[in-house]
């Protein structure tokens, strides 16, 4: 049982003399033990902050002031430390890289058990049980950072559950995952809930899975819980949700299929052409190449959706286009230039690249400078640079942050700064690496609308995305990669027949196929009996 009464939270200001940021206001709700709760809402609504409050990070570790009461299974979060609360609550964060801090999978899971003084031989057994439960048996000795995003999140879940808490809190655990990785995470949660009663509270952008799994839905806007009900809320209040920026799944996600193209005909205006390109990472990479003999031609003015699983070579391909990565073999021609003969700085006038993580590309001390950096580096005069910066800030509503350091802005705004800093360079080619990951529907549409407009004015766009709806809606072409190979490439088939293919079923949320293995249940019973004997 979780009780939240009149919860408020103000973040301490980031800079001296700044105003405290109010991110939770008068939040009250109850959660019954054993239920699956989805927290939904637009970017910046306070979903993560609420998760932090339920895990006790607020008020114990974060800077700010809290009002109201949060009680998790009888423990008042402001009277107990996060570690004490961890007896009841497991917490999984959004960024897997920042929460797996050990150098092997087994140590991640051992950590909470060691802290509880569990005997080494039992820790050893528990590691195997947990890995089996999250479907990661055989990965015991692996280095966490060498795993895929979905696997890393499953390890994080295993580590959060190792000490058997009653409540699991997940803060957008699937934001960076491909559809298959997402399904893996939900499968694991379902499997665990079959073995024992556990409350799951999940903040999530993707309402499709919430609709399928949740018993209770909390809808947040501007730090307040505006609706609290069961999953039928998603259909009942559809208009309200959509107006705030939450996407409500409108039917199954589309199947992206390329029309067959004749390979012998080369397009006349291939602005990008890859000729037998292979790339092998040296140190740290595995032996198989990240890109394996990829050849393709992209016509001028195309809007290409680049899809494929995490680790299929999408980002590697994108970085070839401006020379950040040079092919091990083969030739890359972009804007009729051989990329290997030009420096990245020179290619910048032809190709704009927006990185996957906005934090990896923001480096100036004010938003204005950040957007001006590219145009200035291209050698444009001050008046033109000023005009372009102004244009971009108007477009993304950034004027109020003109002199603020972009690194201190919210996630959606950081994304906007990163995107506008590249668009301001007005390159004939734009490469976007998952530009809408972690953004709500409204912001994502605004981004893609802008990019679509540029595309109609002749800019060639290559967009890496896991969002099949966005690819179907905005892209003209699809390029699908798998293990460094091209699976399909060509104009997207938007006819009705393409949507009838059997592939569509796989993309829908569904219950995991395999039954829970009997060992889990048996071990659980054996463990309960041990506990009783101890008492």
């Amino acid at each position: 049982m979780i009780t939240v009464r009149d919860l408020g939270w103000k973040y301490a200001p980031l800079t001296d003399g700044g105003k405290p940021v109010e991110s939770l206001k008068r939040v009250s709700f109850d959660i019954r033990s054993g239920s699956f709760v989805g927290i939904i809402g637009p970017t910046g609504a306070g979903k993560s902050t609420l998760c932090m409050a339920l895990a006790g990070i607020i008020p114990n570790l974060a800077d700010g002031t809290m009002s109201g009461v949060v009680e998790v299974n009888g423990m008042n979060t402001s009277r107990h430390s996060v570690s004490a609360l961890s007896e009841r609550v497991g917490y999984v964060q959004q960024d897997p890289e920042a929460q797996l801090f050990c150098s092997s999978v087994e140590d991640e899971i051992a950590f909470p058990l060691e802290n509880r003084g569990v005997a080494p031989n039992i820790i050893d057994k528990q590691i195997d049980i947990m890995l089996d439960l999250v479907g990661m048996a055989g990965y015991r000795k692996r280095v966490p950072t060498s795993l895929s995003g979905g696997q890393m999140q499953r390890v994080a879940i295993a580590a959060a559950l190792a000490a058997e808490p009653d409540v699991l809190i997940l803060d957008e655990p699937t934001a960076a995952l491909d559809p298959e990785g997402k399904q893996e995470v939900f499968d694991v949660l379902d499997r665990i809930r079959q073995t024992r009663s556990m409350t799951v509270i999940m903040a999530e952008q993707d309402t499709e899975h919430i609709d399928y799994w949740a018993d209770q839905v909390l809808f947040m806007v501007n730090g307040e819980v505006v609706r609290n009900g069961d999953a039928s809320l998603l259909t009942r209040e559809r208009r309200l949700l959509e107006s705030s920026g939450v996407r409500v799944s409108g039917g199954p996600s589309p199947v992206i299929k390329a029309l067959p193209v004749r390979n012998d005909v080369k397009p006349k205006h291939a602005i990008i052409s890859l000729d037998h390109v292979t790339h092998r990472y040296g140190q740290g990479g595995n032996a198989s190449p990240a890109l394996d003999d990829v050849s393709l031609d992209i016509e001028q003015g195309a809007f290409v959706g680049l899809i494929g699983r995490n680790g299929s070579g999408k980002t590697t391909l994108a970085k070839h286009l401006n020379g950040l990565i040079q092919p091990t073999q083969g030739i890359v021609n972009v804007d009729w230039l051989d990329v290997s003969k030009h420096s990245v700085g020179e290619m910048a006038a032809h190709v704009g690249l927006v990185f996957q993580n906005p934090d990896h590309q923001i480096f100036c001390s004010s938003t204005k400078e950040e957007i001006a950096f590219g145009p200035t580096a291209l050698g444009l005069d001050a008046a033109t640079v000023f005009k372009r910066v102004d244009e971009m800030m108007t477009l993304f509503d950034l004027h109020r942050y003109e002199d603020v350091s972009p690194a201190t802005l919210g996630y959606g705004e950081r994304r906007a700064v990163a995107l506008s800093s590249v668009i301001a360079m007005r390159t004939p080619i734009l490469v976007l690496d998952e530009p809408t990951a972690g953004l709500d529907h409204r912001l994502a549409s605004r981004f893609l609308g802008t990019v679509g407009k540029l595309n109609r004015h002749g800019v060639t766009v290559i967009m890496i995305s896991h969002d099949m709806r966005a690819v179907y809606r905005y892209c003209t072409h699809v390029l699908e990669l798998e293990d460094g190979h091209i699976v399909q490439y060509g104009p997207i088939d938007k006819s009705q027949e393409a949507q009838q293919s059997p592939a569509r079923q796989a993309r829908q949320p569904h219950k995991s196929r395999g039954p829970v293995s009997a060992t889990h249940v048996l071990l659980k019973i054996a463990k309960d009996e041990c506990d009783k004997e101890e008492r």
Partner: protein
Amino acid sequence: MDAGLYVPGDGWLHRTDPRVKFLISIVMLALCLVWRNWAFILGILILEHVMLATDRVPAERIGWVWKILAVLIVFIVVLWPVFDQSGTHVLWQWGWLRLTQENLLMAAVMGLRIPALGFACFITLFTTSQTKLVRGLTSLGVPYKAGLTLATALRYIPVFFSIFQSVSEAQRARGLDLSGKVNAAGKKRNIFVRLVDRFKSYLPIIIAVLIRAYKMSQSVDWAMESRGLNLNRKGVKRTYRVNLTMRIVDWIILVIAIAAAGSVWVMTWLS
């Protein structure tokens, strides 16, 4: 660079007790600092390579160490004779710049000493997993949290290194061209301007990495707390999954290390 500095493996150094490896590293560091003899330091350097090679640490990791130390080595070897004017056997003189047999020899010693010191550390860092490192430190009386902090810091060095690279890539992708001999406006840039430009471009990257590092360390702190780092149950002590035991081999290695260190110390004392 997935795992940080640790190279997963099962060589003899990997199996050696971390405490013994600490001692080996410290002894090598101390001896290289005390004895300024080029032949001795070269000997240590060769010994370190033999140890890493027989432990089957891949050559590219050893090459990586040389790569990061290269700038420092060149810097010191070139600057040493400039600032050290000692020595009587003058080989070449130009104004105040004197090259003597003695200061050239010292430059060579310094040039060898840096990789020797570096590899002395990497003998432990390459072959000791985070767990064993923490365990080794705690069993020597270092508080658990201090050990954990050190091990976690080491674990995240490559992460920050890759963020640094990524931000630097972002700068170049937005048109920063540090290699070109002309700037975007077509003006010629001399080597000095290019060097200053390069250092100027590093400053914002460092700030960006620091902001990211701060956020990430906060996140790691939350993750550790929410898995019970500071859990103080009454009467319950923290346990460790891995427990260290000194095998006979470890004792033998320990004795050899001490004997070797002792004899070297006697030799320096005699000479």
